[in-house]
């Protein structure tokens, strides 16, 4: 889906692809985690609303949102409509196919378990890296799995930034402003001088919503290029950007 035209000029062909990040199940797990929701009893209408909000922001950022995100949005809305059916009808239907959320919950639980399994594998790999042999270089997994901020935590933090910057994107059309490419350059020189800084620091002096978005896209691009990584030590904790050596 197309982003906003005013953004395209600043982006100069930069389009952060999300395949280095994860899909819709990861977004749902993120929402479930940050709100401490019981995975077995998901409040569908609330989650659907939040899911769509994230999707909207991802589109505004003109991220290359995978088709799977749209499919999930449709699925959520379908479940939501089923949950809204009058009770008598719902009971009859329930006898036939059970809770309309069941399939989604099953998918979420299964995905979550493999995420955990991946965490175990990461630990094994890091233990294996402590011993050396004559073979090929050993496998290095991303910096401490449990600490690395995922895309959706970054987006959550960025939403706060946007709220503070305010909503006046269209004033920017006429003014020639900073591009993603320039921001990447700025960020690279910043990270060369300092090994790490706070995510919020990046937006301290931004003049507009557009500049904030451009900065954020530069961060995502550099994460994708593995020049930097984002770390969040605890839920809702401050996100820090670090140089990857």
């Amino acid at each position, binding site marked *: 889906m197309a982003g906003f035209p005013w953004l395209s000029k600043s982006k100069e062909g930069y389009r952060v692809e999300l395949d280095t990040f*994860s899909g*819709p*199940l990861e977004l749902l797990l993120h929402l479930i985690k940050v709100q401490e929701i019981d995975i077995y009893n998901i409040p569908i209408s609330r989650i659907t609303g939040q899911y769509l909000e994230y999707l909207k922001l991802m589109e505004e950022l003109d991220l290359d949102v995978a088709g799977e995100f749209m499919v999930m949005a449709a699925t959520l809305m379908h479940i939501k409509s089923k949950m809204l059916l009058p009770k008598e009808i719902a009971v009859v239907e329930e006898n036939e196919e059970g809770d309309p959320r069941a399939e989604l919950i099953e998918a979420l639980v299964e995905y979550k378990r493999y995420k955990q399994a991946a965490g175990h594998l990461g630990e094994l790999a890091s233990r294996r890296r402590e011993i050396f042999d004559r073979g090929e270089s050993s496998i290095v997994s991303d910096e401490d799995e449990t600490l690395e901020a995922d895309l959706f935590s970054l987006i959550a933090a960025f939403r706060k930034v946007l709220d503070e910057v305010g909503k006046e994107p269209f004033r920017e059309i006429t003014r020639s402003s900073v591009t993603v490419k320039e921001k990447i350059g700025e960020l690279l020189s910043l990270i060369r001088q300092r090994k790490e800084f706070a995510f919020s620091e990046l937006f301290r002096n931004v003049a507009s919503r557009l500049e904030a978005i451009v900065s954020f896209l530069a961060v995502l691009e550099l994460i994708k290029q593995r020049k930097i990584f984002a770390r969040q030590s605890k839920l809702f904790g401050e996100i820090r950007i670090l140089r990857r050596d």
Partner: protein
Amino acid sequence: MESAETKNIIEALLFASSKPLSIRQIKEVLDKTDVQIIRQAVVKLQEEYKGDGRNFQIIEVGGGFRITTLPRFAPWLKKLFSAQKKNIISRQALETLAIIAYKQPITRAEIEAVRGVNADGVTHSLLEKRLIQVVGRKPVPGRPLIYRTTNRFLDSFGLKALADLPEIEELKEVEEDVIRRFASKNRQD
């Protein structure tokens, strides 16, 4: 051949090899020696390394044995190899690898069913790193490729065999939990 000499030869083989050596591979070299004797010699060697306070160890990974340094030398070795190109695997690739490891043999569609997202790119990068391999095609329409993890995967994660993958105990509990909860059919939203 004297058993002490068998052991010495095996030590030389392990020392020079860049990959884990299986008992079968050692047997190919020492063709007149009984497999049982080879196994005993390897175990003896392993114990000697442990007992003598040597700076190396013999570990069993990826279907074979190999000599490695001890963990306590890691800081210096990491420094020595710091400039080397690192074999980095992303979190998404690690997730995909976990799915393959626990559910193999598996097709890409089956991986995607768990991840809920396209697995083309990650599968490709895992193949490139030789952590997984194609082992055939599934006899269903479209004849999709079937993937399995490799010995290199086992070695990279310090595993002797697939049976040594950490058991995900919680997973079973979780499954039972799902069944229980949906059996009671309590719906509140």
